[in-house]
């Protein structure tokens, strides 16, 4: 069984809340990725989202843009990412999800991408610039190679579209908290509550909330009306701050612990 499916069975049965951190592959340095993914897992991540850097990340705010830029300067490619994950996959038990814009995947070759993802032990895929309407071919390949697909719901999504998106998302739906790019913001909860209540009454599958979740307080409140959270920019900011610290993986692990603490 796909590792993601397993986790979300637990979510459904036992009302478990998931914590999903995001990191950009190859950031802040090439060597960091092989250290940070296990650190995130040790800190209590239930899944990890691995960002594939792209030169033109239109859905990202300044923090993740900058990390992608650095990663590309470090020489990150999909080929390198596969090689790196292969080295650590046996030591990391939790599901790994790729977050990638469409173009690097197209250029790599769609089928080759899915084949390699399966071989290396990638469990899921989220493409922020691929709406359901354009997803036929990718969905077919994902099924063939047993990679779960995750689609996004946003505050502008109608209830009818929510049903369509839910159908295409294998185990859970990713809800974008507010209209906007990735990034930290203040006063998240009060802004998103009515929208999350609407989702609650329209979604049958579990759903996690991302974009702007950045403090333990956010994690606590948002997870009360969802099945979990994704934290991206806040983690990248934290990594940026301690990028030259020798204890970076340990620090990241503790940071994840702290962010996740309200879910215990």
């Amino acid at each position: 069984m796909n590792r993601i499916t397993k986790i979300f069975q637990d979510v459904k049965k036992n009302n478990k809340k998931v914590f999903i951190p995001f990191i950009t592959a190859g950031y802040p340095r090439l060597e960091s990725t092989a250290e940070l993914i296990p650190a995130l897992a040790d800190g209590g991540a239930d899944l990890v989202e691995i960002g594939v850097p792209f030169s033109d990340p239109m859905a990202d705010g300044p923090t993740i843009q900058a990390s992608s830029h650095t990663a590309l300067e470090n020489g990150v490619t999909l080929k390198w990412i596969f090689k790196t994950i292969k080295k650590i996959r046996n030591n990391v038990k939790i599901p790994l999800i790729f977050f990638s814009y469409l173009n690097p995947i197209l250029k790599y070759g769609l089928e080759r991408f899915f084949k390699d993802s399966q071989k290396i032990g990638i469990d899921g895929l989220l493409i922020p610039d691929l709406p359901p309407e354009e997803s036929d071919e990718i969905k077919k390949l994902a099924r063939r190679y047993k990679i779960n697909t995750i689609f996004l719901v946003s505050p502008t999504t109608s209830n009818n579209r929510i049903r369509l998106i839910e159908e295409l998302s294998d185990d859970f739906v990713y809800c974008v908290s507010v209209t906007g790019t990735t990034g930290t913001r203040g006063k998240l909860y009060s802004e998103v509550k009515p929208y999350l209540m609407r989702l609650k009454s329209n979604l049958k599958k579990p759903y996690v909330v991302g974009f702007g979740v950045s403090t333990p307080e956010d994690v606590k409140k948002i997870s009360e009306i969802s099945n979990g959270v994704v934290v991206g920019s806040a983690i990248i900011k934290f990594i940026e701050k301690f990028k030259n610290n020798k204890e970076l993986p340990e620090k990241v692990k503790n940071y994840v612990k702290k962010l996740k603490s309200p879910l215990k």
Partner: protein
Amino acid sequence: MKRKKGYFGKFGGMFVPETLVPILEELEMAYFQAKKDKKFIEEYKHYLEKYAGRPTPLYFAERLTKKLGGAKIFLKREDLLHTGAHKINNTIGQILLAIKMGKTRIIAETGAGQHGLAVATVCAKFGLKCVIYMGEEDMERQKLNLYKMRLLGADVIPVKSGCKTLKDAINETLRDWVTNVRDTFYLLGSTVGPYPYPLLVRDFQSVIGREVKTQIKKNRNSSLILIACVGGGSNALGLFYPFLKDKSVKIYGVEGGGLGINSQKHSATLARGDIGVLHGSKSYILQDFDGQIKIPHSISAGLDYPGVGPEHSYLKEIGRVDYTSATDKEALKAFHILTEIEGIIPALESAHAVAYAVKIAPKCSKNTNIIINLSGRGDKDVDIVAEAEGKKL
């Protein structure tokens, strides 16, 4: 589920974050309603005529024709329009649409500043709030247009990400739009981006070709050639589109050849790119081995873009339009020729189309009519030309 709409052959589509999908669908619906709305069409025509200055002349360039000694050369004078380029045809259409949709804030990208200028102009005219994203490098290259936009009341925001030119300005405008979707209208400047923009912009620009059809006297003994420069592709499609069905018309699109298409410094997307997804549509793009977008180069900021409209990719694939390129040098030479013997200073973008005409006209018979889309005037480029030639203003 199958998506058939929004494609030109296998090119086009709507590759955007979920937040924008419902908004693009709203735009599509509003546009198809407007197209059938007599009042809307009347209004669009009214402003094209009284405000922008249509129809533009189809001018017989007699001395250029004589000098080249072959085909008869005609210039479609989009350079005579208000704000100095074809861009205003599209901005009038889209702002009327924005008003009809009840949007109160207009955002746009600009490269050369011609589109930004045309947007700032219609926003001033209709009293809408206007935010323009412009790459820092382009702000430096196009100071005059930058200042004009600010005079017109636009809030011009410098874009510091990526290579600080047009492609990054589009990214930043998309990010603004994703954030402020509900009250904001993205007034896109070329036949690029997610569906329905490539269609909408082409339709608003097609007035160019429709006018030419009524202006050119075609007879059985003469043949017709159309030439236009291709950045994103809007002035080119505007001229070409009404002629696509008439297979007797030969059509050439001219891309920015930069320092040569065998160098790494050009913006000849159709000649040297391959298929990918950028800025919401599937089309030819300039990318590296890993699918990262390359930094293009052209002496003209308006052609300096690593993508091209999806309909052009389609027209290339079916072989209806021949795509070629002119280098910076050839464009500069054509710039001088037109200036000196016709007294018309062309935009550097348009000079690329002139350059290709200069190349082929001598080989054509006297019964051939060549129509060059003179998409804009060159005032904005005078200092760039001076600098390229080592002169000071």
